[in-house]
C-alpha cells in the first residue's frame, strides 16, 4: 500500500482537504512573525468591520478555532475586548451594552461549548428585541460535519432564536456579512444576529473591501422594514382619540427603541391621555410626570390595571400584548377599542384582535399622528382624571412603598430599591435580575430617564443582572450602573465578579438576599397551597466571597443601614457590592394568577415585616385550571 494510515477515501480532494484542516487545527497558526509585515486576514476584516459599524467593545472568551482572531486583536486598538468568565455573561453584557446605549452589542465565543454557552444570552436578546451580533468560531470548512473536536451545528441551534444567522466559510465574505449582520440587528424590529465563522475563513488572506450602507440595503430585497404607518389608519386613530372618553396609552419597548419618548409625551399632553407602560417600556416617560400613570400587568399597579379595564380606547405603541400584560384575553379591557402600533406586522393580531392596526416605527407613526390631534381641553377629562387619581392613591397607599412599611426593623425589598434609586439621584441605570427582585425594581425604581431600566422581560433569564449591568457600565460610563439581583440569579453568574474586578468595571451590585427563590416560594404559597419545595436557597457568606474576589462589600440587615451603604458603594471608583438581607417572606403584590384577568388581582398587603405565613396560605389554586374562590 502506497498510502500509509487509515484515511477514508485517501487521495480524494475531500480527504486531502480534511487532512490539511486537521493539521491546521493544531499547528502554530500565526501568519508571520511579529516584526514582519503580515498580510490582512479574515480576522482583521472582522475587527475592521465591527469598528466601522460603530461598536467598540467585544465581550468574549477565547478557544481553539477563534484564536486567529485573538492573534490580531492587539493590532486593532480601537476595539476593546473584555474577557468574561462564561460566554453566557458575554451575551448578557453585549445585551446590557446595547440596551443602555442603543448601539449594537457584540459578543464572541469559540465553537462547540463556547457557542452553546452564548445561546441563553442570544435567546434573551431575541425575546426583548435587542440589537446584538454574536460571533462564533467554527472548525475549518473541511471538518464541518465530521464531529470534529468542539464542533456543533451552532447555526442550526441559533436559527430559531436569531433574527438571522450566517455560516461564513471564506475570508472574502467577512466584510459583507458583518455589515449586513449589523444592519439587520439594528434596523426594523431589532434582534440578535449570529455569525459563525470557520477557522480557515478567519485565517485566510483577503483583500475584500467593506460595502457601503446602500450596497447592504440593495442586497436585501426580502428585508424592507416598514417604518411609516398607513396615512388612512393614522387618520382613523386621530378620530378614535378625538372620540374617546377614557383613553389609555400602553407604551412598550418599541417607543424606547424608536427614540419616540418626546412624541409620546406630546401626544399624551395634546390629547390628555395617561401613559402606562409595560416592563420593557419603563422609562418611556419620567415617572414624576403628571401623565405618567404606571406599570401594568401581572405585578403591575392595581390602579393601572383598573384604568386599562375601564378604558374605552387602548393605544398600544411598540408593545405586544403578551400574557403578562393582558392576563386572560377574554376579560381584557372589555370596553375598549384597541389601536395597535408596531413595526412588526406579525405582532398585530397575534395576541389580541386589533380594531385599529398600524404597522410602522413608533416615532414615524407618532410624528404623522401629532398634527392630526385635536388639542383636548384638560377640563373635559376632569372626572376621568379625578377617578384615576383616587384609584392611584388607594393602590399606592395599600403598598408598603412610601408608607414606612419597613416596620419592626425588617428590611423590605421595596424600601431597598427605593433607597438605591434615591441614593443615585434617580439617574442610575438599574439592571434587574428575574423574579421578585425584577418586579420590585419595576414597581419601585422611580425611573426618570429612557433606557435606564434594563430587564430580561421576554425570556426571563435568571443570572442576567450582573453581566448585563457590566455591559451598561461600559456602554454608558457617565451613569452609575446598578445590578439588582436576588440571591438565586446572583448565584447563577457570580463568576463575573472576577471580570468586574479585573477590568475595573464600576458596577454596583445590590444583592437582595432573602435566602429563597422568592418568586418560586410566592407561587408555592399562593398557587400551590403552601406545598413548598426547592425554594430554600443556601448561599455563601457574601462578604467573604467579595473579599476573596477583591471587591469592597457591605452588609445591610436593617433599614437604618441602607443609605450609608448605598453612599459608600457609590463612593467607590470601582465595583462594589451591598448584601441586603431582606425579609424572607415578602411577596410581590398585587399578583394576577396565571389564567386570570387584570381585574382578578390578588391584593394582599401585610401589616408586618413577614406578610404571609405558611399556615395562612388559603385554598389551592391550580395555575392551569384556575377556579373561583382563591385568595382575593
Amino acid at each position, binding site marked *: 500500500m502506497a498510502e500509509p494510515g487509515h484515511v477514508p477515501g485517501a487521495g480524494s480532494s475531500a480527504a486531502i482537504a480534511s487532512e490539511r484542516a486537521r493539521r491546521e487545527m493544531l499547528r502554530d497558526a500565526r501568519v508571520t512573525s511579529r516584526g514582519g509585515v503580515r498580510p490582512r486576514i479574515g480576522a482583521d476584516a472582522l475587527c475592521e468591520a465591527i469598528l466601522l459599524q460603530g461598536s467598540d467593545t467585544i465581550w468574549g472568551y477565547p478557544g481553539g478555532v477563534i484564536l486567529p482572531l485573538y492573534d490580531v486583536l492587539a493590532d486593532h486598538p480601537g476595539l476593546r475586548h473584555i474577557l468574561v468568565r462564561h460566554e453566557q455573561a458575554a451575551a448578557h453584557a453585549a445585551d446590557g451594552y446595547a440596551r443602555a446605549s442603543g448601539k449594537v452589542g457584540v459578543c464572541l465565543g469559540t465553537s462547540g461549548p463556547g457557542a452553546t454557552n452564548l445561546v441563553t444570552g442570544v435567546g434573551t436578546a431575541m425575546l426583548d428585541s435587542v440589537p446584538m451580533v454574536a460571533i462564533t468560531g467554527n472548525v475549518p470548512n473541511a471538518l464541518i460535519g465530521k464531529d470534529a473536536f468542539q464542533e456543533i451545528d451552532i447555526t*442550526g441551534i441559533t436559527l430559531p432564536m436569531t433574527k438571522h444567522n450566517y455560516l461564513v466559510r471564506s475570508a472574502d465574505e467577512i466584510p459583507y456579512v458583518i455589515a449586513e449582520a449589523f444592519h*439587520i440587528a439594528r434596523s426594523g424590529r431589532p434582534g440578535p444576529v449570529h455569525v459563525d465563522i470557520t477557522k480557515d475563513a478567519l485565517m485566510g488572506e483577503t483583500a475584500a473591501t467593506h460595502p457601503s450602507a446602500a450596497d447592504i440595503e440593495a442586497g436585501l*430585497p*426580502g428585508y424592507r422594514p416598514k417604518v411609516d404607518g398607513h396615512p388612512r389608519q393614522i387618520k382613523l386613530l386621530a378620530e378614535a382619540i378625538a372620540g374617546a372618553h377614557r383613553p389609555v396609552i400602553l407604551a412598550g419597548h418599541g417607543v424606547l427603541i424608536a427614540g419616540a419618548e418626546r412624541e409620546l409625551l406630546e401626544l399624551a399632553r395634546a390629547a390628555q391621555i395617561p401613559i402606562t407602560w409595560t416592563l420593557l417600556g419603563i422609562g418611556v416617560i419620567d415617572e414624576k410626570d403628571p401623565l405618567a400613570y404606571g406599570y401594568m400587568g401581572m405585578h403591575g399597579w392595581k390602579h393601572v390595571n383598573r384604568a386599562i*379595564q375601564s378604558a374605552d380606547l387602548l393605544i398600544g405603541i411598540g408593545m405586544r400584548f403578551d400574557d403578562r400584560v393582558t392576563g386572560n384575553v*377574554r*376579560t381584557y379591557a372589555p370596553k375598549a377599542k384597541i389601536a395597535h402600533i408596531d413595526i412588526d406586522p*406579525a405582532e398585530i*393580531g397575534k395576541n389580541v384582535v386589533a380594531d385599529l392596526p398600524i404597522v410602522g416605527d413608533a416615532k414615524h407613526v407618532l410624528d404623522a399622528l401629532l398634527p392630526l390631534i385635536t388639542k383636548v381641553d384638560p377640563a373635559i377629562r376632569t372626572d376621568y382624571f379625578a377617578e384615576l387619581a383616587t384609584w392611584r392613591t388607594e393602590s399606592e397607599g395599600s403598598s408598603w412603598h412610601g408608607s414606612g412599611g419597613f416596620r419592626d426593623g425588617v428590611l423590605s425589598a421595596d424600601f431597598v430599591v427605593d433607597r438605591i434609586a434615591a441614593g443615585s439621584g434617580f439617574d442610575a441605570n438599574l439592571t434587574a435580575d428575574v423574579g421578585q427582585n425584577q418586579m420590585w425594581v419595576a414597581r419601585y425604581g422611580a425611573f426618570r430617564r429612557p433606557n435606564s431600566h434594563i430587564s430580561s422581560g421576554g425570556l426571563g433569564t435568571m443570572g442576567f443582572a450582573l453581566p448585563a449591568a457590566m455591559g451598561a457600565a461600559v456602554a454608558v460610563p457617565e451613569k452609575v450602573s446598578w445590578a439588582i439581583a436576588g440571591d438565586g440569579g446572583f448565584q447563577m453568574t457570580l463568576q463575573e465578579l472576577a471580570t468586574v474586578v479585573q477590568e475595573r468595571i464600576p458596577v454596583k451590585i445590590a444583592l437582595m438576599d432573602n435566602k429563597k427563590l422568592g418568586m418560586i416560594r410566592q407561587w408555592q404559597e399562593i398557587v400551590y397551597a403552601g406545598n413548598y419545595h426547592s425554594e430554600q436557597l443556601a448561599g455563601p457568606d457574601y462578604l467573604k466571597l467579595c473579599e476573596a474576589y477583591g471587591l469592597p462589600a457591605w452588609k445591610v440587615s436593617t433599614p437604618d443601614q441602607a443609605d450609608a451603604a448605598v453612599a459608600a458603594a457609590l463612593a467607590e471608583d470601582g465595583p462594589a457590592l451591598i448584601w441586603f438581607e431582606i425579609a424572607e417572606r415578602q411577596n410581590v403584590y398585587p399578583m394576577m394568577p396565571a389564567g386570570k384577568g387584570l*381585574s382578578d388581582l390578588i391584593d394582599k398587603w401585610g401589616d408586618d415585616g413577614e406578610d404571609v405565613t405558611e399556615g395562612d396560605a388559603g385554598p389551592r389554586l391550580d395555575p392551569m385550571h384556575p377556579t373561583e374562590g382563591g385568595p382575593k
Partner: protein
Amino acid sequence: MSVGTSARSLPGSGEERRHLIVAIVNNKPGVLNRVASLMRARNFNIESLAVSVTERSDTSRMTLTIVGDEVHVEQAAKQLYKLIDVLKVQDVTDDSTVEHELALIKVRATKRSRPEIVSVAEMHRAKVVDLGDEAVIVEVVGEPADIDALVELLREFGIKELVRTGSVVMSRGSGSIEEQVKR
C-alpha cells in the same frame, strides 16, 4: 370578577380550512430549513410543501399547504415574511388558480386485473408509466381531489407504494408573483 359582560374575542377563532401559500425565497442553502423550522416553532402544520428553482436561478418558489383559520394562516404568512431570505409571500387560496399535483402509484397487478387498472387510469387521465408482471406504476397529474379519487379506486387492487409531490399552484391571468419581488 370581570368588569364587563361581553368577552373579548380571541384572534383566530374562525373556521379552519386548507390554505395555499406561495413563497418566493432566496435560492440559498438552509432556506428550506429556515422555513420548516419557523413553521414547527410557531406550531403551524405543513400539509405539503413543494420547492423548486424559479425562472431566475437565484430564487426558489415554495408552495405550502397549511390548515388553519384566516388569522392563523395570516400569522404564518407574516412570520414567513420576517425571514430575511423570504422575498414574497402570498395566500392564493381564494384566487383563481391552477393547482396541480403529481402522484406515482404502484399498484399490485395480475394478468387478470391489469387491463382493469389501465382502464381506471385512463378514465382519470392518468398514465401507466411502468408495466410489470406483478405491479404497474400509474402516474397522474391533476388537482389533489382528483388524485384522491383515483387513489381510492386503485386501493381495491392493492397499493404497494404511493408518492405525491404536494401541490404546486399558479394564479391564472397575466399577474406574476415573481415579478412582484422588489429588487
